[in-house]
């Protein structure tokens, strides 16, 4: 599948900049893991050490937690850290992997995320309309913002999915074997993802 040079340049430009943005955003969101630790510990220390506490502070733990994983999903996708069953995958050639990623993105990721936006739109819109707040007295008044994370997550993942598909296409269309890492411009954090 040879592409016209213009189209190749355009796709490469998109992939590089999309991934760079996604990467920077992920590094920013990563700080929310530290704040989650500190705020949760603060809640515990206030309760058991000083016998006080506030529902708002407790709910901010939940908000922090939701922000962490909902907004980190696209970054994790960019870093290719969503776990795969790699019994066979590790043995495939670069091209076979590109085919899998191209079709997987088009058939699995995009429909899923479009469905989440389509079905979630009203769910979130209703929450905005009534200015939905916490059911608890003294809770946070931003439940509609929290629910909006569902749409934001899907939008970010769609952006990354388009980039992943473009990356796979570039790999498939190039005569020589361009590894995805070259296109990705080494924007892969060198971490050991362990569980």
């Amino acid at each position: 599948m040879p592409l016209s040079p213009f189209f190749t340049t355009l796709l490469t430009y998109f992939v590089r900049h999309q991934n760079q943005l996604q990467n920077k955003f992920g590094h920013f969101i990563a700080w929310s893991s530290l704040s989650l630790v500190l705020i949760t510990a603060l809640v515990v220390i206030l309760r058991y050490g000083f016998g006080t506490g506030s529902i708002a502070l407790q709910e901010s733990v939940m908000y922090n937690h939701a922000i962490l994983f909902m907004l980190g999903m696209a970054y994790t996708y960019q870093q290719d850290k969503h776990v795969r069953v790699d019994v066979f995958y590790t043995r495939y050639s670069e091209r076979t992997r590109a085919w899998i990623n191209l079709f997987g993105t088009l058939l699995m990721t995009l429909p899923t995320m479009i469905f989440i936006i389509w079905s979630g739109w009203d769910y979130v819109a209703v929450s905005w309309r009534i200015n939905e707040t916490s059911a608890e007295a003294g809770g946070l008044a931003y439940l509609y913002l929290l629910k909006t994370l569902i749409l934001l997550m899907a939008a970010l993942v769609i952006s990354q999915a388009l980039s992943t598909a473009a990356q796979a296409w570039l790999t498939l269309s190039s005569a020589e074997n361009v590894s995805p890492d070259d296109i990705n411009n080494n924007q892969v954090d060198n971490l050991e993802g362990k569980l």
Partner: protein
Amino acid sequence: MEWLALVLFAVIFIALLVGFPVAFTLAGTSLLFALIANLFGAFDMAFLQSIPSRIFSIMSNEILIAVPLFVFMGVMLEKSKMAENLLQTMDEVMRGIKGGLGIAVILVGMLLAASTGIVGATVVTMGLLALPTMLKQGYCPRIASGTICASGTLGQIIPPSIVLILLGDVLSSSYQQAQLNQGIFSPEALSVGDLFIGALLPGMLLVVLYMLYIFYKAMTRPDLIPSNTGQAVAPGLTSRVFKSLLPPLALILLVLGSILGGFATPTEAASLGALGALLLAAVNKQLTLTTLNAVMRNTLQVTSMIFLIFIGAAFFSLVFKGLGGDELITELLTGLPGGVFTAMLIVMALMFILGFFLDFIEITYVVVPIVAPILLMMGVDPIWLGIMIAINLQTAFLTPPFGFALFYLKGVASNLKTADLYKGTIPFIMIQLSVLILIAIWPELVTWLPSLVY
């Protein structure tokens, strides 16, 4: 048309083997299957309308907040050099005992497991530190690699563990559902803490059996496990032992103690543990901005990975339910000759086999919600069921070709032959299975401790 639910299960299993990320495959395959079934009138798309509220309930689930906190704690501890110090002093303490180094590895695995619950960190650390020493002392590579992998997986069964937190989350809602179905309208609750207490004795039993195995091998086959008579122990051992044991014991007291003592929820205890790990790294002069960035990004990636699987599993469970799969499985499991025993045996065997290919998160969120309510309605004790599943899933970490522990060890010990790595796990898988059988015969091993506490 209920058989379509089984077709969905089979299609997803095959799709997963292709190697596209698990979470997207679970969601995408279920969605496409639903759309096609809908065309033929076999599925009502209204079932999928609750996806947004399902996602929101994952976001607001208080139990699951413990997951990123324990991940943060585990990754931070790995950077704090606690494991290195422990391994070194334990090795010195065990000098002179037959199979001493192997037993030291198991003890360190146990201590790390009780302070955090991350398998990967433990296996990698010991693969880097203990494996070369074991091989240099003349340990057979199979026994060395098997011991390290098995000791690493202890993190999944000895509380606090992420497997038990996720199982507690799934089983508590299954237990509620089972009781409501039976017409009990003031249902008893099941907490993550119950599972933690129930897992203590079985976890210890595994540790003892692992050590007995190494000791027995060292006695009968000195050609495979030579005794270490070489180096003398450096002076000042007692104070070094004390210094290396203090941090893990303090963390265990803080995290596990506060949960088991009923002072804190797992989430609260996890935040204190994470704070403790942060302080420990600072005290050991390991806390730099680079380290902190690596820990935070790693936590973000692992957490996002796990939670996206929850969303994928929500798609699967709604479509499976919409196709009538729940009724089908109920019929299949309750209609068996031999009653609960056969049903339990089949479920355990299915999980064991799936464990060769899938990891614990998918099994916990795809299989357990389907079968657990049925087994619980048949009268199975929820804590016992949880621990049986947990040990089964822990075994999945060891079973080739897709055992996490094997991957981690292979990653840091590339000169290890894959055949040795795989064969080395066999005796430990056997130990796991025999513990499963022991618990099946004497459920008191699990239920006795929780009954004392409450």
